[in-house]
């Protein structure tokens, strides 16, 4: 399955969950709307989700102007703006020229405005830097740029120091360097550091700024120009996009330019301005009325009224000790609740108490940064604001307790210090209803666990039976390289009554390359940077299993009535490990079949589903010799076998390296390094030599040595395969190759064939051929099995940057 589909599936799952719980995709029941009350499911609630910050939607002047426009021009004027626009458009454009004191172009929506602007204003020679939290509509337009030829990168949110570094680094290679940001960010309500951005604009001639100030329009600035232009001149190297569908209250958007030529070019060439429909008379009429109000003194008293409410809201949030993510001058507020399950719980509670608030959830925010987003408008009374916040403060501890989350978890997830008051209240830890029936056991080494107990759970599940883990512990500790020193942690949650395990797994914490699963082009690019900075784009990860194990790492006895509670105890343990080791991500991996209940449970707990590379498995070993193996293959594979395998088979010999000496291990390690250095498809760190030494002397593993006599030359070792052999399955985990002979003698294919023969000799039931090289593996009878992981990321900057780089690589290689 493609990564994009998995993300869409995750979004589908989350939103559908919200719909099922009655908190998303809602419709009002009201026949008439006025003020800030709405009817939802037969209940009157105060609406704290409106972005119409000045409450102008009920202003009689706008309503009358809208009605008059319909009377005069009809319900629509259906012609492209490239041909004809109605008179109201010109009137509105003239008014906006006065509001902004700069040339403007009106577009039907802000998203369409970005799609008109960005491909016209930015070109292949430019570099684009997007803020990590810039609105999705901006990113959507960036994706339209030049078939992937434009340099695009992501900047950590609001990091002006890093931005300056990037400008310095890119200015010699690009015509213009554009930074794309929001004036006010739509989820957390924080703002772009405009003073610093203006300094950079003044300092670097090649630096340009593109700002979306949708949430700033009307509520700040002269004539309601917005937050970006509040007490600030229009910079000659800035383009401003702003919305008329929020504080302005009419629908539509305005793009503002530093000069007439730029405005003319977008008006002439911007795709949506040629092919999309125009704003319709009702909206235009209202917009003319709203713009006229913006040009009077009245707008300032409206702004004042809103800002007094914003100030009051900030004060109340402090008084009631709510975990607010940022104190804002904007009308958007975000109270962190950490996990989606708490978010759902809180929105439901608030609705029941008579308040509609928004759920801030993935993909708008990272999974573990779920929160309650609410907005304040001029229509709210002070007592409505106070009562809503008091209710939230009363309900949040109940929701947290119900979902087994603490205030400390929230502050930690948002990386903000825990206030003293909250620490004092933190007496109720993560209480789980069934915790009395369960006990979690944590071990630091496999040697602390009884061999029979562990193997009773994990024998035949993969390469991680007791001996397999002992080998890993011995190999991945006390090495020189940081990446080869792993932390091992074992967790078994048992039912106290039966003493049986309900949930069990082992975790390794290690440095991973962030681009491990990225396209090879992306890894290639990053590896050049790693030549001077070996840990560039690497992160510490707590993972179930390890980078050298495959199989079902997580044991869950779903027949136990306590399995979900046992999983909560496991999550507590993993979260503790993440903090202890300062790891960025948690990965629960190698799931083959995920049912809806399990997926929903993990998403509620802040995990999102990702696709791992497809796993190759040979299930059919019902043949007795090479001929029967040949007969079991498909028609195409038979042809391949004759041409690429059987033809050379006589020149190969296979030995099992039981009595390896130092020199053998050196040779094998060199072959492994050949493969490692040639493959970026699954980009990992180089394994330590010590591992190969341990494998060579392990009873659970064997080393298959493939030798070739090319022409009249003496026998040479050309391939080596290290396989786990304990249990029912044959699991080749590592391969080494001499590429000198690969082309002429098809060494890799021969090795795969010999693996099959060896598995049969040992009487195994399956061969688990692992990830990558699926086409080759299919030719020996492997079938693909989709594999998934569930991930939690603390800081998603690297992941987002890689997604942008991967998109560019994909577009280029199409």
């Amino acid at each position, binding site marked *: 399955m493609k990564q994009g589909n998995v993300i869409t599936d995750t979004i589908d799952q989350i939103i559908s969950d919200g719909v099922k719980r009655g908190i998303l995709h809602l419709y009002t029941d009201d026949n008439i709307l006025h003020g800030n009350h709405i009817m939802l499911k037969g209940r009157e609630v105060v609406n704290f989700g409106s972005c119409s910050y000045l409450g102008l939607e009920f202003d009689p002047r706008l309503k009358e102007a809208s009605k008059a426009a319909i009377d005069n021009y009809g319900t629509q004027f259906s012609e492209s703006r490239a041909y004809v626009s109605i008179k109201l458009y010109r009137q509105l454009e003239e008014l906006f020229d006065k509001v902004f004191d700069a040339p403007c172009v009106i577009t039907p929506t802000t998203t369409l405005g970005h799609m008109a602007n960005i491909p016209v204003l930015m070109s292949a020679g430019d570099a684009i830097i997007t803020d990590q939290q810039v609105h999705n509509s901006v990113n959507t337009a960036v994706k339209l740029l030049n078939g992937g030829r434009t340099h695009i990168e992501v900047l950590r949110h609001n990091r002006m120091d890093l931005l300056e570094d990037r400008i310095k680094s890119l200015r010699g290679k690009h015509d213009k360097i554009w930074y794309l940001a929001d004036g006010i960010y739509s989820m957390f309500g924080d703002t772009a550091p405009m003073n610093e951005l203006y300094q950079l604009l003044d300092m670097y001639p090649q630096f340009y700024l593109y700002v979306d100030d949708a949430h700033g329009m009307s509520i700040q600035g002269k004539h309601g120009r917005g937050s970006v232009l509040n007490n600030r001149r229009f910079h000659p190297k800035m383009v401003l996009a702003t919305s008329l569908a929020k504080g302005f209250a009419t629908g539509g958007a305005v793009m503002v330019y530093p000069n007439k030529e730029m405005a003319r070019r977008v008006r002439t060439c911007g795709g949506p301005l040629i092919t999309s429909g125009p704003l319709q008379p009702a909206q235009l009429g209202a917009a003319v009325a709203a713009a006229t109000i913006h040009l009077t003194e009245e707008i300032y008293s409206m702004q*004042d009224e809103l800002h*007094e409410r914003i100030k*009051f809201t900030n*004060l*109340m949030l402090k*008084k009631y000790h709510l975990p607010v993510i940022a104190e804002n001058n904007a009308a958007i507020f975000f109270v962190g609740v950490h996990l989606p399950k708490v978010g759902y719980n809180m929105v439901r509670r608030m609705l029941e108490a008579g308040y509609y608030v928004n759920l801030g959830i993935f993909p708008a925010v990272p999974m573990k940064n779920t929160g309650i987003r609410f907005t304040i408008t001029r229509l709210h*009374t*002070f007592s409505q604001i*106070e009562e809503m916040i*008091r209710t939230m403060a009363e309900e949040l501890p109940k929701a947290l307790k119900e979902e087994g989350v603490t205030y400390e978890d929230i502050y930690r997830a948002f990386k903000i210090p825990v206030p003293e008051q909250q620490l004092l209240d933190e007496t109720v830890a993560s209480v789980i209803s069934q915790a009395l029936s369960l006990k979690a056991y944590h071990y630091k080494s496999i040697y602390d666990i009884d061999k029979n107990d562990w193997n009773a759970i994990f024998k035949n599940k993969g390469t991680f039976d007791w001996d397999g883990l002992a080998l890993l512990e011995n190999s991945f500790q006390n090495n020189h390289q940081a990446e080869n020193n792993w932390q091992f942690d074992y967790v078994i949650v048992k039912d106290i009554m039966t003493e049986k395990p309900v949930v069990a797994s082992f975790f390794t914490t290690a440095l991973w390359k962030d681009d491990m699963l990225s396209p090879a082009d992306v890894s290639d690019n990053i590896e050049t940077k790693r030549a001077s900075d070996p840990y560039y784009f690497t992160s510490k990860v707590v993972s179930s299993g390890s980078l050298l194990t495959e199989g079902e790492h997580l044991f869950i006895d779903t027949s136990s009535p306590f399995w979900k509670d046992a999983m909560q105890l496991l999550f507590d343990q993993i979260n503790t490990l993440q903090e202890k080791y300062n790891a960025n991500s948690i990965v629960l991996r190698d799931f083959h079949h995920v049912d809806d209940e399990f997926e929903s449970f993990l998403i509620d707990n802040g995990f999102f589903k990702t696709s791992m590379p497809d796993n190759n498995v040979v299930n059919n070993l019902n043949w007795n010799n090479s001929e029967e193996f040949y007969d079991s293959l498909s028609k195409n594979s038979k042809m391949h076998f004759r041409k690429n395998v059987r033809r050379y088979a006589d020149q190969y010999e296979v030995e099992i390296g039981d009595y390896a000496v130092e020199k053998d291990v050196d040779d094998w390690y060199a072959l492994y390094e050949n493969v490692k250095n040639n493959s970026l498809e699954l980009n990992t760190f180089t394994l330590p030599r010590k591992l190969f030494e341990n494998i060579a002397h392990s009873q659970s593993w064997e080393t298959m040595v493939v030798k070739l006599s090319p022409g009249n030359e003496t026998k040479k070792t050309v391939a080596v395969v290290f396989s786990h052999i304990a249990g029912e399955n044959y699991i080749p985990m590592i391969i080494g190759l001499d590429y000198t002979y690969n082309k002429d003698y098809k060494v890799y294919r021969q090795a795969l064939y010999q693996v099959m023969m060896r598995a049969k000799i040992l009487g195994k039931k399956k061969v688990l051929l692992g990830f990558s090289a699926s086409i080759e593996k299919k030719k020996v009878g492997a079938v693909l099995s989709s594999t998934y992981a569930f991930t939690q990321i603390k800081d998603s900057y690297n992941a987002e940057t890689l997604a942008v780089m991967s998109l560019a690589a994909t577009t280029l290689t199409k």
Partner: protein
Amino acid sequence: MRLTRGEFCQFNHTTRLKLLKEFGKNVLEKKIRMRLISIYKISDFYVEVYENLDNHQLEKVEPVRNNSVLEVYNNL
């Protein structure tokens, strides 16, 4: 909801009056010449409000330091 005097004073006159009307209690109203003087109690303090009846402008919305303000006005 409890506001301190300092917090109350962060707001402009219009907002202060709204806060008094929404959260406070009008405990006295007296017309003196062309001025309507109202006293509100909010949280644990009193607030004096002067409205000019000629032009309906708010002239003063300030907390009073002396909580015996009611006595003072009642004796006028």
